[in-house]
């Protein structure tokens, strides 16, 4: 029998999980324990020295979490993954492996507002400098490259307007610059877009959104594509130089094409500490089993709602790349042929006040700061997620004051449209 590549839905249910050897439990057990007993002193030393595979302490690894990691690595087509406490934690851990104080990374201007804050303010205190580029102008990424550039960061489907990024074009810029391309694939999930297939070297997620899918558990993950040569030009000492914290081990030499995921675990997570709770890992794993079914429904509903809004007299414009008239429709057809996601924005003729009134009149949509829930959600980015940006930056990132963002759930689309219709007519 030759190797058969199972389909996406099969991997979503099975990858990483096997009936528990001790009890026969079919569902992955929640290993809610801080620590794991060693077989003997030699076993303990082998684990601490990275010589044996196994569990030590849940901050570094946990059997429930490991199933989640392998499953997402399989769904993304990566060599390995590392789960952490949140999407934000994933970004810190990734960049800690790549940047030394004084180094830079390039980030797309269209990003989740929380990431813009993290990159602009929090990372400044680490001496990590961000250079912004416009995902609609590939040359702006090329212009931003300097000798201290250590990576490029983009979102596949960008918050808040659901615009589609030309991953392959930016991957080419990264390749020429000799730096890894990091893609935040949260809004697409691997069901809609697999960035590694388009040249990404590292994929990150907030698992809190569509992957977990039920709005009940925070989590983040880092996927190693196994594509980047960390030894080239000796730009990445965390991966390529002998590590004093492990008696001089060189991570890339020892772990080959999953070295980045190991560095994130044994240098990043171990020492920075943002570990995922095994209970959250369990909740997210359960969510992932139905990811393909949910994403189909999310996308079907989002398209219907976007079409309804586009035809409504109170609506000035709709930014949904799944609409044929949308500026990003060509990229959506290329990168996300199964659906353009379920997060998008629209603006109202009545401006800021009409937006505020709409949000308060909706009865099924929940007004909150999350996306990718089974429930439909609404928010006014200018006064919430993107409130810390100045007016010009708000417009540039797609969060102008008259813009309302929706995250469409898996309810019946007729009910969602009826709710919007009544709220717009009040």
């Amino acid at each position, binding site marked *: *029998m*030759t*190797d058969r590549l*199972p389909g996406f839905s*099969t*991997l979503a249910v*099975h*990858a*990483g999980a*096997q*009936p*528990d*050897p*001790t009890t*026969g439990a079919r569902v992955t057990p929640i290993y809610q324990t801080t620590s794991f007993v060693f077989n003997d002193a030699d076993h303990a030393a*082998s684990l601490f*020295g*990275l*010589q*044996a*595979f*196994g*569990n030590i302490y849940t901050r570094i*690894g946990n*059997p429930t*979490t*490991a*199933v989640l*990691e*392998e499953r997402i*690595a*399989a769904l993304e087509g*990566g*060599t*390995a*993954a*590392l*789960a952490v406490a949140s999407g934000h934690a994933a970004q810190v851990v990734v960049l800690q492996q790549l940047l030394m104080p004084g180094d830079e990374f390039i980030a797309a201007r269209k990003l989740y507002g929380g990431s813009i804050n993290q990159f602009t303010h929090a990372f400044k205190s680490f001496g990590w400098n961000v250079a912004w580029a416009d995902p609609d102008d590939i040359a702006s990424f090329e212009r931003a490259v300097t000798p201290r550039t250590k990576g490029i960061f983009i979102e596949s489907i960008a918050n808040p307007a659901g615009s589609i990024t030309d991953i392959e074009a930016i991957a080419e810029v990264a390749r020429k610059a000799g730096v890894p391309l990091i893609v935040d694939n949260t809004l697409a999930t691997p069901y809609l877009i697999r960035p590694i297939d388009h040249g990404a070297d590292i994929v990150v997620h907030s698992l809190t959104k569509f992957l977990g899918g039920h709005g009940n558990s925070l989590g983040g993950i880092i996927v190693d594509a196994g594509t980047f040569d960390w030894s080239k030009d000796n730009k990445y000492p965390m991966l390529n130089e002998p590590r004093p914290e*492990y*008696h*001089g*081990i060189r991570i890339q*030499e*020892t*772990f*080959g094409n*999953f070295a980045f*995921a*190991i560095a994130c*675990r044994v240098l990043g997570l171990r020492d920075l500490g943002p570990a995922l709770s095994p209970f959250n890992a369990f909740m997210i794993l359960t969510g992932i089993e139905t990811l393909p079914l949910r994403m189909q429904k999310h996308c079907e509903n989002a398209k219907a709602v976007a079409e309804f809004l586009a035809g409504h007299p109170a609506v000035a414009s709709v930014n949904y790349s799944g609409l044929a008239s949308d500026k990003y429709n060509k990229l959506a057809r290329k990168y996300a042929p199964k659906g353009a996601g379920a997060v998008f924005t629209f603006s109202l003729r009545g401006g800021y006040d009409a937006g505020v009134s709409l949000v308060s009149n909706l009865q099924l949509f929940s007004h909150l700061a999350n996306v990718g829930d089974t429930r439909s959600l609404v928010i006014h980015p200018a006064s919430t997620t993107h409130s810390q940006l100045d007016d010009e930056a708000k417009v540039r990132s797609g969060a102008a004051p008259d813009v309302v963002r929706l995250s469409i759930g898996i309810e019946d689309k007729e009910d969602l449209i009826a709710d919007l219709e009544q709220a717009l007519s009040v």
Partner: protein
Amino acid sequence: MNHDNYDDNYIRSILNGVKSIAMVGASPVNVRPSYFAFKYLAQRGYDMIPVNPGHVGKSLLGKPFVASLWDIGRPVDMIDIFRNSSHIMPVVDEALTLSPPPKVIWMQLGARDDAAAEKAEAAGLKVVMNRCPKIEYGRLSSEISWMGVNSRTLSSKRAPIPTQGMRLSLNRMSVGGGATAASDRAAKNKSEPT
């Protein structure tokens, strides 16, 4: 043979088939990848032979170093080469003079010499390049999944129970004698008719 991309069954058949492995370039330094791989493969039951002329007279995890493949003095199934690509050919030439020759030439992660591979294959040997047998064993057994690595395998079967076929330990700490106080009382009442 496509040496860019191996079918899992090819690697599986090698790791299931070989019993003895001579590791050329094995290091006694416990942070070197060769040491990790040597120790792991020994723990998985392979008969490991460390080959390194710089360490003759010493031993690695109880196995004495030999200076060259000729010094092993018994048939060996696989040669695992922990040397840079530029040092592969002489090892393969030496391996092909052994009688009987080994069944497999394995070049470590990062090592590749296509001409040496061709020569070994022409002599009927199987060749693996740029892979680590520890990682491949861990991946195919899914042991490596503990590290969040994509094993690229699936199974709906219960893994073997670790204790099956083994003597179970009877040396657990006992709590306050054998039975419970209530059952002791019940037994006492039964034996003392009213």
